[in-house]
C-alpha cells in the first residue's frame, strides 16, 4: 500500500508489467490537495 498524490501515480498505473492496482480514499478521509496555481503578475 502507498499513499501518494494521484497525478504521480498515473505513470505506474499504466505500466502493463504491473498487476492490477486498487485505489481508495485515504484513511481518515481528509486528503491533502497537491499541485499549484498559475497566475499573471500585476507587474507584467
Amino acid at each position, binding site marked *: 500500500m502507498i499513499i501518494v*498524490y*494521484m497525478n504521480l501515480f498515473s505513470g505506474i498505473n499504466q505500466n502493463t508489467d504491473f498487476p492490477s492496482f*486498487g485505489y481508495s480514499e485515504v484513511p481518515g478521509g*481528509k486528503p491533502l490537495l497537491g499541485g499549484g*496555481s498559475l497566475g499573471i*503578475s500585476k507587474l507584467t
Partner: protein
Amino acid sequence: MASLPWFAENAFKPLNDHLKELVFNYPQLILDHFSIVKGTPFAVPLDPSIQMLFYRKDIFQDSMVKRMFYEKHKQELKPPVIFEEYNRIAQFFSEDFSTANMELQGTCVTTGNTEIIASEFLLRYYAESGSLFQSNNKIGLDKDKALKAFKTYFDSLNQALNLSANWWDALLNLSKEMWL
C-alpha cells in the same frame, strides 16, 4: 495554491475572458481551491491532484491472503479507513510475507524531504480532525491530536520501507514485488 487567498488580489491580475473560459472547464471544487478568491478567478489550476491510497488488488483479493489475515486479526482484509488499520495491514504484510531471501514491507514512506514528511503528518493530523487554527484564530497545532498523528506516523515508519529520497520518484520506481 494553499496561500493563494492571501496574495492573489495583491499579486495577480484577474483572469481575462479567454482564460476564464479555460478554467471554468474544471470542477467547482478545483476552482475553489486553485483559482477563485472572493468570487474572482485569479489563477489557472496547475497539475491539481489529491492524495489517494493505492494497493495491489490481486493480493488484497487473494483468498489465501484474506484467510491468513482473518486468522490473525479476526477482521476482513480490505482497504483501511483509519490509520490504525493501515498500520495493522502494513505490519501483516511486512511480518508474514517476508522470507529468508527477501524482506518485504507492507508500505513505503519517503523521508528525505521535510515537505513530504509534513504532507504525511498533516494527512494524519487532519484525520484526527486537527486544524492549523486554534482559539482566537492563532496558527498552531492541537497538542493531543498532533501527538496521535505523530504516533500513527511513527508506527507506520516501523512497518514501512523508508526511502531517503527527496521526492516520490524513488517510491514509484520500486519493483512490483515491493508493492504490497
